[in-house]
């Protein structure tokens, strides 16, 4: 009677809501299909073409580019990129998670200030900030002077153009991503739940691991994704702070494009990088069983 009429009316309304919701998907779908799939398909095709003598490609199918990747020296670059990405992500979590978490606990006034404080460095050219790090790390630079002044060391550390310098630079560049992601997730946390748990007798650490950590997990995960992915491809930090001595896949791709003029090999390298990175994210998702980031490969 009136019940069925009610449910039918609800069904009608649900149909309407579904309709409008689909509209919200439209911009993303359109943009992705037109402007991203197109170039990507071209890149894919490029990786199967043969290089011309000095410049460009000819329309000849070949698997050579992919086979070339199996050279030990090139495989090593993938390994190096992977290693650096893991190190960067781990340190990013160590520094970035507490930062985002503490930030979310501040009062409103300070929250706003901190958000801006973190953003402002980002609007200064990353190249210039790297030069700043060079000044800090170089022999008798800022770091050396401070440490020698306090008396911890007697000789310059010679940190510049070493692997640790690169790691610091990478973490520095990607930290805001982690901070923002964690903050975004932690900010909406209902602290009263945590207080309730504490009132019920849970210790600080226990309350943290069972409630806070779980509820900020989406933020942490998206932070990991936003850190890991770029650090696989970033290479100019390794170039500048590492003195070009750390060879990553990104450097290799740039060299193949710009110096060796081997576009198709560069495309093949990029495709492989893309697949590997996607695989990493997929595995990561499976291992951590996070259902909340549904659909995120």
């Amino acid at each position: 009677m009136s019940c069925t009429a009610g449910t039918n009316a609800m069904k009608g309304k649900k149909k309407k809501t579904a309709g409008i919701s689909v509209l919200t998907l439209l911009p993303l779908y359109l943009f992705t299909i037109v402007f991203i799939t197109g170039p990507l398909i071209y890149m894919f095709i490029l990786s199967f073409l043969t290089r011309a003598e000095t410049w460009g490609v000819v329309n000849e199918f070949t698997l050579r580019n992919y086979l070339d990747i199996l050279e030990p020296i090139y495989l090593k670059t993938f390994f190096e990129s992977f290693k650096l990405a893991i190190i960067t992500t781990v340190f990013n979590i160590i520094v970035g998670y507490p930062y985002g978490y503490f930030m979310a606990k501040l009062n409103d006034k300070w929250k706003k200030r901190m958000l801006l404080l973190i953003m402002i460095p980002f609007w200064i050219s990353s190249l210039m900030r790297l030069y700043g790090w060079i000044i800090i790390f170089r022999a008798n630079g800022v770091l050396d002077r401070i440490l020698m002044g306090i008396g911890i060391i007697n000789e310059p550390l010679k940190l510049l153009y070493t692997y640790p310098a690169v790691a610091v630079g990478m973490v520095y560049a990607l930290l805001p991503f982690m901070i923002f992601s964690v903050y975004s997730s932690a900010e909406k946390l209902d602290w009263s739940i945590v207080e309730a748990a504490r009132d019920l007798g849970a210790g600080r650490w226990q309350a943290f691991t069972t409630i806070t950590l779980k509820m900020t997990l989406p933020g942490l995960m998206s932070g990991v994704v936003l850190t890991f992915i770029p650090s696989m491809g970033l290479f100019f930090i390794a170039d500048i702070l590492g003195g070009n001595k750390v060879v990553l896949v990104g450097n290799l791709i740039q060299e193949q494009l710009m110096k060796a003029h081997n576009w198709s090999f560069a495309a093949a390298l990029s495709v492989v990088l893309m697949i590997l990175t996607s695989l990493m994210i997929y595995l990561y998702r499976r291992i951590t069983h996070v259902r909340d980031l549904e659909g995120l490969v």
Partner: protein
Amino acid sequence: MKKTTGIILVLCIMMGLLAGCGAAETSKSPAKGGTLTLFTWEGMFPQEILDGFTKETGYAINYNNFDYDETMLAKLQAAKGGDYDLVIADDYIIETVIAEGLAQKLDKSKLKNYSNINPIYQGQFYDPNDEYTVPFGAGVQTIVFDPEQVDIDIKGYTDLFHPSLRDSVGVIANYRVINGLALKVLGESYNTEDISKIEAAGEKLLELAPNIRVIKDDNLQDDLLSGEIAAAVMYTSQVTMAKMANPDLKIVFPSEGIGFGIMAAFIPSNAPNAEAAYAFMDYLLRPGIAAQYFEWLGYYSTNRAADDYISDEYKEFLTLPSDFAGNTEMIQMVGAEAEEAHTKVWTKFKSAAGQ
């Protein structure tokens, strides 16, 4: 919080739009004589030269930049030789530009100051009959070292391999130059297509790797001046800056052989305003202007008439020494297989240097 962030956003957008309108006013308004669309690296000219040109000829300058010659070629190809009026780039890429039909032959009657060019920089491999280009700077890669930090007397590339220089040598990130360094030590040509020779050079380079502290192109002279490295293989412009800052540094023309390079200007085949290009080249060929240009740039003067105008403190750096007897060779593009061998060698070298 919503309100304040909203206000910041609005302010940003307003500022952007206002400034955008302001800039549009000044730039889009066509200058009296039209516009010169220049395409080269940033920072090639002191502002006085650019402003002087505009004031004198009425052409506004639209200064476009690229980072690598290869980027320039990719963009020029995409534009089918159009969009740009004047391009200044490295010698080897110009050979490809001409081969791809992207440059137009020069009408020398439009260049009154053409005779100022120093002939030894003409008739080179990339433009044997000087039909397409005008040289605007030349350089060699030399070894520079700090005698206070280095015990041995460096005379050539071979000395860089000395164990006393462990972890204290810097080189530019130019793979042809550095691979070429090893090739020269083995007595070969920079441009050999023989894979076995290139691989032998690679093996030799691995011996140099423990001495390498840094490989980079930009501002390498800073590392020499700050004491990070004791010896370096650098570009001419960097050598100039280093020596001006520290006159005690020693410059060495390597005994094994020297890589020679020229920067030259050409007009793309479909340049929208070729007249402006001719005007600029002619202006830059004037002795006084050219001297200013080379002093700013730090590369060798390719303009004979300008040599007299260069101030004394720069003269040493901007002209090849009169008793110069080294064997020079220009680095040219090599075939695909040789390129692959080169990049493999280079990658192994960098990786070894990082251990």
